[in-house]
């Protein structure tokens, strides 16, 4: 195996690991985390509304978890 093929394989393996680790079979949680970070960045850094950020961050995380669990639960109950 030549050097460039080995490097390509290693890079591909590295990318696949992080894809599986962060996205895997729950892409909705990955998207939710990006939305949470974006929303809290707006609230905290642009609008300087600290109290709102303190409330919104965990609430959005709970909503994301609830929707993801409900999605899996509905899929199981439909079968």
């Amino acid at each position, binding site marked *: 195996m030549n050097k460039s093929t080995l490097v390509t394989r290693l890079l591909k393996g590295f990318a696949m*690991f992080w894809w599986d*680790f*962060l996205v*895997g*079979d*729950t892409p909705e*949680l*990955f998207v*939710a*985390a*990006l939305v*949470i*970070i974006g929303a*809290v*960045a707006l609230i*905290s*850094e642009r609008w300087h509304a*600290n109290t709102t*950020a*303190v409330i919104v*961050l*965990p609430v959005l*995380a*709970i909503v*994301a*978890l*609830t929707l*993801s*669990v*409900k999605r*899996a*639960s509905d*899929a*199981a*109950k439909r*079968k």
Partner: protein
Amino acid sequence: MLATTVSSGVVVLVGAVFLACAVEMVEALTIVFAVGHTRGWRSAFEGVAAALVALAALVAVFGPALIHVPLTWLRLVVGGVLLIFGMQWLRKAILRSSGLKAKHDEDAIYQETVAELENLTPGTNRDRVAFVMAFKGVFLEGLEVVITVLTLGTSAHRLGLASVTAAVALVLVAIIGAVVAKQLSSVPENAMKMSVGVLLVTYGTFWVGEGLKVKWPGNDTFLLAFVALYALVCWVLVTVIKPRESSNPQKVDA
């Protein structure tokens, strides 16, 4: 007050690292036992040793690099990763607790691994299959340990404490595993995963906030409020989605 805030952060950090490492160690140990009992211990131990060297090399490369990343960015990225990772763990643990997903059965995994290995040609002194299986089991589970320790340790500025806690968890589980041998299924793995999930989401929320300059009331003490809040949410979700006895839902694979 200072003692309270320091100890709150330390308790949550130690709890998160200890439980996460113990869970991963149980999973790795199950594979190593299956390989060792079926194909011989020499190649299994060689696979374990090679995996530990590879993991140590990763820590040596990425550990010092992480320390040089600005703390605000480090906490935002690590917080985001922990938030996703923690929610994934919680989702699985909630589905398992409610009976909608099959529980992680170490006995079944042990039997499956043994059956897979027994169907292959008998091992020699240097058994490549045994080496590769032990290496993969320890390396993949160990990678999660490394990520947990590096991210939690560096973001909390307590890498030494996180590393020592991880080492204690790994040694303890190894000793208990060696004593109870194939009875790793008696470890309450789902309850431990639920606890780790709560702690990872707690730290994820906290550090995403810190990375975005959110000032938490009471600083580190607020971690305990998050632990209580997320534990309550998990209990409510398990209670709400748990099927009634009359219904007969299929277990999901996701």
